[in-house]
């Protein structure tokens, strides 16, 4: 982090007890520290070159393609296998076995032998195997409604209806993006020392960004072949209004719990960014104009946000009202005086919903790249570095940690049915993570370790008889059943934002809160929950395509233009 001279009364980052609640985590929005924005800033700054090395697609949309980005030291290629999937086989669920298109991100430029090997494996996804030369494996399905509309329009020689484009926002949605050693791909530790992969999830974000480009090329090519001489390409500005969708289920939720140091580092960077802006001594007319424009752009973003989910609809309505209130407040009380950003923040804490507050956080740091962008380099983690247990710690100290980090859990009556209503487990059928009703389906024996609050309360009770001055090592020799949670507790003592401070097996748990927190760090927007445990999102909407990356601002796309502006 940059060493800025901090006044002695510096405003500290928000405490974990405020931030690490599920309702708040489930209100996060993308920021300029989100991983897809970090990626595009790097590709632009380092002048990465795009090459469409292969593109052979027929009128049905079947074929193969290779999209390569050449960087200063290395190249990476998205290899695409496009299929013609009958509608009855189209499913966003993990249990699907066929997709409209499948992808892998190759480390370098593939030869014919590589492509032949991958052709036999990538279209099979989980049933196939890839090698250390591959960095990700993914698949996508068409959004049939919009795909058909756009194809028909292009074939007829006209542009699609912008209202329909905005209503869906993408032509395909990815339904899984595997990285980091999955299905035999390269482990993160094999590539983490490359500067381009130092921030988290960069291969996955690169893969998704190239996928978006392929999908747009695909539909234009299909139109060209179906209506030669008559078909048109998409007008570039309208084309950029297509993102790439994603449909995400419960699989992402356990990730946050099983990567406590990584999650801490994401949150810590975001909170530090907010604190830096709140500590700014003053604001000038340029700052005031920038914030006003951003509020208008946030309103345009919210206007595009569609969801049929009753809870999310309410939240969007509240956010919309929050932004109106914010705009009105800024007219009455513009940023001025000492620490004007902090004054506005304190007003927001009193006046706005959590959706509104977290959106304001994104807007606060948006114009302050020079102040916060260095934090992106702090968002990775080696989870293994928190693995060793400090057995010399005394039981007394450990109890104090449990009371501090899990005090909320020690206050819960864990014998009440609603406290342990749910259990996380993995299904034998397709190895997908699920959340079941504990009592109804006898899941106890299969429960995954994803209830830190409950486990901390159990360990705390077991520690009651251990002498306060005795070492934790002695306790663990007799109680291996508490090893998992004591490791977490020690990690949380060193990393304040490592632990979610809510019950992850409660009857009223909304898993989508966990999904949204993670996806916001990717840079996703337009969260559209389809149930309490499944969400659709849009990624890279408005972003430049690879071929135009150097012709437009690389990082001014995440908030759409204000209505009336362009």
């Amino acid at each position, binding site marked *: 982090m940059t060493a800025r001279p901090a006044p002695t009364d510096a405003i500290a980052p928000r405490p974990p007890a405020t931030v690490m609640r599920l309702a708040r985590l489930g209100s996060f929005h993308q920021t300029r520290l989100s991983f897809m924005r970090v990626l595009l800033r790097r590709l632009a700054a380092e002048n990465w070159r795009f090459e469409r090395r292969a593109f052979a697609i027929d009128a049905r949309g079947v074929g193969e393609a290779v999209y390569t980005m050449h960087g200063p030291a290395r190249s990476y290629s998205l290899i695409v296998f496009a299929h013609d999937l009958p509608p009855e086989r189209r499913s966003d669920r993990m249990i699907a076995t066929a997709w409209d298109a499948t992808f892998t991100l190759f480390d370098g430029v593939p030869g014919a032998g590589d492509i032949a090997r991958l052709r036999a494996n990538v279209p099979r996804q989980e049933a196939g195997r890839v090698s250390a030369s591959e960095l990700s494996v993914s698949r996508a399905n068409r959004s049939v409604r919009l795909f058909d509309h756009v194809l028909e329009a292009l074939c007829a020689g006209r542009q699609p209806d912008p209202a329909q484009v905005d209503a869906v926002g993408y032509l395909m949605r990815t339904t899984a993006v595997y990285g980091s050693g999955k299905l035999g791909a390269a482990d993160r530790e094999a590539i983490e020392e490359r500067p381009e992969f130092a921030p988290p999830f960069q291969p996955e974000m690169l893969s998704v960004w190239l996928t978006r480009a392929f999908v747009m090329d695909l539909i234009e090519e299909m139109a060209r072949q179906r209506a030669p001489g008559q078909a048109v390409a998409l007008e570039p500005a309208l084309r950029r209004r297509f993102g790439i969708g994603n449909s995400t289920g419960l699989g992402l939720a356990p990730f946050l719990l099983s990567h406590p140091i990584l999650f801490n580092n994401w949150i810590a960077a975001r909170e530090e960014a907010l604190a830096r802006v709140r500590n700014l001594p003053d604001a000038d007319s340029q700052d005031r104009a920038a914030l006003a424009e951003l509020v208008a752009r946030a309103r345009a973003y919210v206007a595009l946000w569609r969801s049929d989910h009753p809870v999310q609809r309410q939240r969007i309505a509240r956010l919309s009202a929050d932004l109106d209130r914010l705009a009105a407040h800024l007219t009455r009380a513009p940023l001025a005086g000492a620490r004007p950003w902090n004054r506005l923040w304190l007003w927001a804490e009193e006046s706005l919903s959590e959706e509104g507050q977290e959106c304001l956080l994104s807007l606060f740091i948006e114009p302050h790249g020079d102040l916060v962008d260095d934090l992106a380099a702090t968002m990775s983690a080696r989870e293994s570095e928190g693995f*060793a247990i400090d057995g010399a710690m005394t039981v007394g100290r450990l109890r104090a940690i449990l009371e501090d980090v899990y005090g909320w859990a020690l206050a819960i009556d864990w014998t009440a049915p609603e406290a342990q209503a749910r259990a996380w487990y993995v299904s034998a059928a397709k190895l997908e993570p699920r959340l079941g009703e504990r009592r109804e389906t006898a899941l106890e024996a299969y429960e995954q370790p994803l209830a830190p609050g409950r486990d901390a309360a159990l360990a705390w009770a077991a520690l009651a008889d251990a002498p306060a001055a005795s*070492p934790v*090592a002695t306790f663990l020799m007799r109680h291996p059943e508490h090893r998992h949670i*004591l490791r977490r507790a020690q990690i949380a003592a060193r990393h304040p934002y490592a632990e979610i401070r809510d019950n992850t097996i409660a009857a009223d748990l909304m898993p989508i809160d966990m999904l949204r927190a993670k996806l916001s760090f990717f840079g996703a927007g337009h969260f559209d929950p389809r149930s309490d445990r499944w969400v659709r999102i849009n990624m890279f909407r408005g972003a430049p395509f690879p071929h135009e990356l150097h012709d437009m601002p690389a990082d001014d796309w995440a908030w759409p233009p204000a209505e009336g502006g362009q």
Partner: protein
Amino acid sequence: MSARSLGEVEALVRKAARGAGRSWGMAEEAGRAARWLETYGLPGGALAAALLEETDGVDQAALMPRPDEAGAWRPAGGGGMCPIAAGAALSDMAAIQPGELRLGPVLWPLMMLPHLAQSARQCGRPLRLICDGLPLEVTGAGAPLPPPAGVLAADRAGEVLCRAADATAAAPLERRFRADAAAEVIVRLETLAARIYAPETPERRLSGAGAGLTDND
């Protein structure tokens, strides 16, 4: 041999250990240990499969180390000690264990090496385990020296002595980013791991994400 990613071996061994009756925290130790061994070209997956099959269904408490009157660690259940449990306890004690420690009998003693390395990193000095006279040694940075063939395949060590080692000029094994677990080993681990997956029922099927909804929109 099938080239697996290190992450795959770690996850599979963690699940297999849980399937064989270890607590989640101990299963995590087993996964990490197998991954670490594979990182240095040692047979972490194969050793884990052998250990977990041998101790399958044995109460975890019986496999834990328990100090006797003389301070030596003996298996709580009287049979053999789990090398993962013994190694984890060694690592837990790294900062407070004075001088030498005697322990044993220990099953599949090479599986203690990852935790010996973790202890060495914590204390910043080379450590050695002498297993029935044969040395297992790690540098102060936690890298292993090539283990003697006698320990590589040993299914148990009667008496193990753990103590500080002198700095050595011998070259440690090199790290790599791939595991080499035989397909047969993977199948054995998968058999144990399969026990932690809940069998499908119609009710459970509906508890997945997005169940019962259409995606043709």
